[in-house]
């Protein structure tokens, strides 16, 4: 047995009710409110916020079809419309769902909460028929095992450990030496940055939390990877869970935290099991618990399964979710690392899966390895996901400094035969779309920033010449609209107004004020929104306006050069 971090029981309670009833009946919510002494409005606030929860009985087949970026490139939206039409009038509810994290296996759908990859119309249809016939989710999953990904555990190249017995060697050395200042100095010297997308120096963050007063601190791993195109954390958790856990323990010991929470998106069931297996092993072997590796240091680690939503990946929204609230980002400062800004207002280290992963790697291989591992003057290694219109989508472990051309045309096999590359998004929807002419940019933070783009989360999505860039911009803006939490006015209202306006543009209707309104919206959302989501809603369309102005202009004249827009059905 081990100590538990103070996490809200509310989601476990709601999930238990939903497992028993299929939804959340009012009587059960009232009973829960009584039992846990939670005001009813608080239950309603969260139950109505997270799409995972049903407030009314669900259909016999609840079908969710992803239509974001890579899945849009693989006709996820068309699939959704065809399925909705085919099962119209039956006890089937076909809806759009935001990115399921299977961009390399597009299109992805979920039937009664089970995810299926690379589905065809026929495959999806028979799954739904099976669900209608009364198949349990487990039976559904079993029926489609051939279609499911065969994510077998592979060794990642930069894993410093040759075998299982040598794992956690870095932790062992630091537990003995307790040279925490030295650890921080190494991290700072290595230049390791947060790899969730924002790129904040990790050494500084850990030092900040370490320096905060008070005995209670937390360490949180953000494994809520939900941005379209971003699949690298799934890969890392699958293939190197021990390095993620080791990174978290190191972070905890450095910062002086007793509890760690690994916050994972609920669609990553396999990875949750892999990590739980690893955590169980650590408790068995004395790596976690009251005496880490026999020392006087204690550290406990547990998994918190996200109730789901892209916004939960925003660090302060993630903390709100752990506290059992609506995942609405907080006003900052104070930042999570500061007293008053973290989990339960305590100083908290939050890092991405990949960041924690690289900590033991760097501490083991040394700062110099970082320099030699990179190319063209860049330092280190990065995991990138390449998806969309490529022959061989997947996650690749590559040296920093590798040109995007090599990632797309080499590792991912380039666009399908006969097609030409039109554009690529270097970091999901938030990084905007770049033209083929910018393919030779290197995977390098500084070089990308100078080019007006970003390495971000390494979520590369490729569009070939069949794509309409205005349609892609709308697709990405709509993703942000769908995922806006609604807390602040610029994002809640602005993302909707922007989506509505772009939808009109794709229909060839551009109002007399639209270009002015577009500018004003970009300005207000970028500068006035509370969090990063609202601040980047405009990026996809701004990048397309910048790099593909002719294509946007053609729509205003009633023509879609790629031949996409004027024949699409209703948008999601």
């Amino acid at each position: 047995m081990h100590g538990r971090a103070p996490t809200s029981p509310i989601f476990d309670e709601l999930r238990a009710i939903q497992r028993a009833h299929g939804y959340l009946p009012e009587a059960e919510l009232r009973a829960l409110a009584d039992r846990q002494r939670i005001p009813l409005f608080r239950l309603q606030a969260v139950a109505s916020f997270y799409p995972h929860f049903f407030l009314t009985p669900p259909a016999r087949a609840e079908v969710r079809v992803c239509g974001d970026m890579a899945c849009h490139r693989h006709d996820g939206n068309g699939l959704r419309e065809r399925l909705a039409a085919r099962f119209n009038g039956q006890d089937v509810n076909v809806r759009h769902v935001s990115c399921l994290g299977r961009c390399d296996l597009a299109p992805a759908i979920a039937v009664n909460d089970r995810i299926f990859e690379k589905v065809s119309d026929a495959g999806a249809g028979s799954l739904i028929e099976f669900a209608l016939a009364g198949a349990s989710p487990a039976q559904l999953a079993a029926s489609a095992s051939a279609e499911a990904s065969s994510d077998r555990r592979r060794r990642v190249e930069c894993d410093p450990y040759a075998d299982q017995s040598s794992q956690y060697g870095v932790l062992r050395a630091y537990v003995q030496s307790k040279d925490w200042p030295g650890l921080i100095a190494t991290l700072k010297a290595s230049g390791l940055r947060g790899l969730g997308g924002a790129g904040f120096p990790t050494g500084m963050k850990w030092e900040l939390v370490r320096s905060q007063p008070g005995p209670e601190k937390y360490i949180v791993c953000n494994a809520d990877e939900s941005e379209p195109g971003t699949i690298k954390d799934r890969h890392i958790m699958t293939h190197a869970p021990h390095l993620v856990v080791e990174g978290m323990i190191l972070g905890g010991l450095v910062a002086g935290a007793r509890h760690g929470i690994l916050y994972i998106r609920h669609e990553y069931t396999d990875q949750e099991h892999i990590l739980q297996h690893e955590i169980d092993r650590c408790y068995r072997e004395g790596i976690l618990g009251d005496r880490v590796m026999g020392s006087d240091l204690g550290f406990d680690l547990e998994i918190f399964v996200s109730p789901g939503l892209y916004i939960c990946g925003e660090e302060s929204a993630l903390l709100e979710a752990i506290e059992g609230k609506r995942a609405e980002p907080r006003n900052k400062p104070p930042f999570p690392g500061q007293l008053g800004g973290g989990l339960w207002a305590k100083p908290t280290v939050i890092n991405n899966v990949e960041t924690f992963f690289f900590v033991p790697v760097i501490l083991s291989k040394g700062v110099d390895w970082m320099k030699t591992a990179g190319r063209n003057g860049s330092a280190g290694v990065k995991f990138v996901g390449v998806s969309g219109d490529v022959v061989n989508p997947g996650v690749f472990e590559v040296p920093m400094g590798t040109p995007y051309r090599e990632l797309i045309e080499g590792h991912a096999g380039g666009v399908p035969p006969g097609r030409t590359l039109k554009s690529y998004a270097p970091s999901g929807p938030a990084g905007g779309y770049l033209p083929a002419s910018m393919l030779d940019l290197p995977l390098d933070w500084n070089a990308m920033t100078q080019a007006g783009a970003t390495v971000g989360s390494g979520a590369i999505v490729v569009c070939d010449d069949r794509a309409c860039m205005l349609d892609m911009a709308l697709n990405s803006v709509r993703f942000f609209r769908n995922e806006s939490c609604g807390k602040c006015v610029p994002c809640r209202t602005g993302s909707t107004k922007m989506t509505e306006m772009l939808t009109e543009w794709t229909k060839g209707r551009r109002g007399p004020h639209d270009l002015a309104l577009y500018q004003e919206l970009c300005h207000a959302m970028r500068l006035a929104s509370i969090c990063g989501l609202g601040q980047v809603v405009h990026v996809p369309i701004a990048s397309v306006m910048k790099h593909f102005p002719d294509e946007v202009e053609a729509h205003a004249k009633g023509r879609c050069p790629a031949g996409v827009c004027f024949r699409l059905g209703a948008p999601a």
Partner: protein
Amino acid sequence: MSETIAQTGMINLIIDGRDISVPRGTTIFDAARLNGIAIPTLCHQQNQAPVGVCRVCIVDVGARVYAAACIRECEPGMKVKTAEPGVVQARATLVEMLMSDHPSPCARQQHSGDCELETMAKAAGVSEPRFARRLSTRGRDDSSLSIAVDHEACILCDRCVRGCDEVKKNMVIGRSGRGYATHIGFDLDLPMGSSTCVSCGECMVSCPTGALTNKRVVDSRLQGDRLDPEWILQLPVFKGVSGTFLELNQGAVVKRAIPPGEIICREGEFGSTAFYILEGSVDVYINTPIAHVQQEDAAGGWFSRIRSKLSDRRTHTRDEESSRRYIPIDAPVDLPYDKPVAELAAGDLFGEMTCMSFHPRSATVRAKTQVVVLEMLRNVLDILQKNKTFRAELDRKYRQRALETHIRSVPVFAKMPQDFVNYLRDRVELIRFSPGEVIVRQGDEADAFYLVRLGFVKVSERHPGGDVVLTYLGRGSYFGEMGLLGGGVRTATCTALDHVDVVKIAGEDFHLMLSRFPDIREGLEQVARERAEMNRRRVASTEHVPIGDFLNQGLMEAQSLLLLDLEKCTRCDQCVRACADAHEGVTRLVREGLRFDKYLVATSCRSCRDPLCMVGCPVGSIRRRGSMEIIIEDWCVGCGLCVRNCPYGNLNLHPFAVQVPDPAQPTRMVAATRNKATGCDLCMEHEEPSCVYACPHDAAHRVEPLAFFGSMLGARDQRHTGSTEGTSK
């Protein structure tokens, strides 16, 4: 913890070029305000913790993005620009976006011209928003008696949320939904009136727009002394209410001083107010004879007139007459059948049903001493009823004074031993339901027994093709025994039709009672059997009916119908005259009604699918017999509500000349007219109704509906095909 955050001392910064010094921890908004720089805001209020959600107070602090001044603390050396062109531009965009979704002018703008959003839009020069209007509607919620909710005008500033949850700690309002679909919700996103809202008014006072506004009550001119809100707030029963709310509702509650002997309200009158006695005492009584209308054949044979007279149940016992000893009224006491008078005193409330549900007054109230009362409209009563102190006081009094007569007024409980009544006194729960709320649901586990204390409960059963209303239960009725006696599962759904108060007796207490008192068990089981049989027959009667129209008109459910054959009828009105002649000049037949085929269905109680006549009777004197005919109990006060409610015009008011005590001098009797409700009696004393006999054209018939319409409907039941006409002349 806060000590470690808040370090003491002053810090210096620059706002709009001015050097400013403020204590550490001061927000930019406050620092600017203290120095005469106004930063616009929608979501921030001085008495609430800042949340920074409207973003209108954004300022440039030289960072990557703007900061919300309301929540951002000043930092040493900070350079703040509150009115940079970029800041002003972003603010204008936010306001324009909000305006594009705003129903301008909203309720607040219409009433008082001070909607904060519309005022700000005007100042920013936003007239016609250029953004597309919101496509989806967000709706209104009219369920609260005191606060109007217009979600369309809501800007999600969270001011009401903080007012409710943080300022007043009432914990009712929260955000519900997500993204653009976010809205404020009450409890589990219920209509405000069905939620645990106590109508303190804080949300409404906090709201910057017309999303939450004071509901003006139409009849807001009460006679009496208008009261100063501060004086009202001193009364314990108004504890916790927002003063601003009372100011907005000045005149909705007045103080009246009434001399002894003066009548405060009369039975049968319509009204819209309730009274709370501050000082003195009153008599409450029924001034209509406690009797029913009896038909008497004056000279024998149907040829002569039938005479109506008033008889009470001691002199004329009717089949299945209620043996209740108490008459339920709209006050915390019941009146004894034999001597319908009671006394109320300071701290008592009466007229609740009239005020909340506009039922007619159930009794006459006269000042016994010099009396001071608060007379109030329903929005104020609503606040009182939701005040916990007041509620507890009302409940305490009810348990003390009325619970016993209430229990004993149910015939099967009439002889319950005193010790068990005392046992129940502290164990029962007193619960209130809003209109439309489900009290028990068919199929749910039966865990309690209920006595209706106030209001009306609809009892319905689920059937393929829709719910069938089995009955309406008013004060003095009970429900829930069928489930408890039977399989432990609710056999019907009971829904509050208006504002309903019930006495809830837990299942274990109910079972204890049954085990201790076999008589009560037997009585309840007997009633349960009768109810089950009645329900079975009602449902069965509708099962064979093939024609929706027939069903819709309620004809199928009739015991007996009077039909006028319109092809033969010359509209001579002989039937109407005959009826009037037979009933002392008061016709019970109206030659109007629903048409089915060539027939006009003129009269007679149909024991409707949905017996609307029973709803609202202030004294609960109209009910259904086992045979489903309507019976009017002796304590009818002649208000006429059932007459109005009957959709078929089958109930009438029958005036009687009577002698009643002179209100001015109660020992003296004076002549007066009192009404009693009556239904068509089908001239039961005769072989044939007068109207049928009188018709010179053979157009009027008294028929059994299923038999008569059998062939027309192609009824499957062959028994009826032989006689297409019932008894006719």
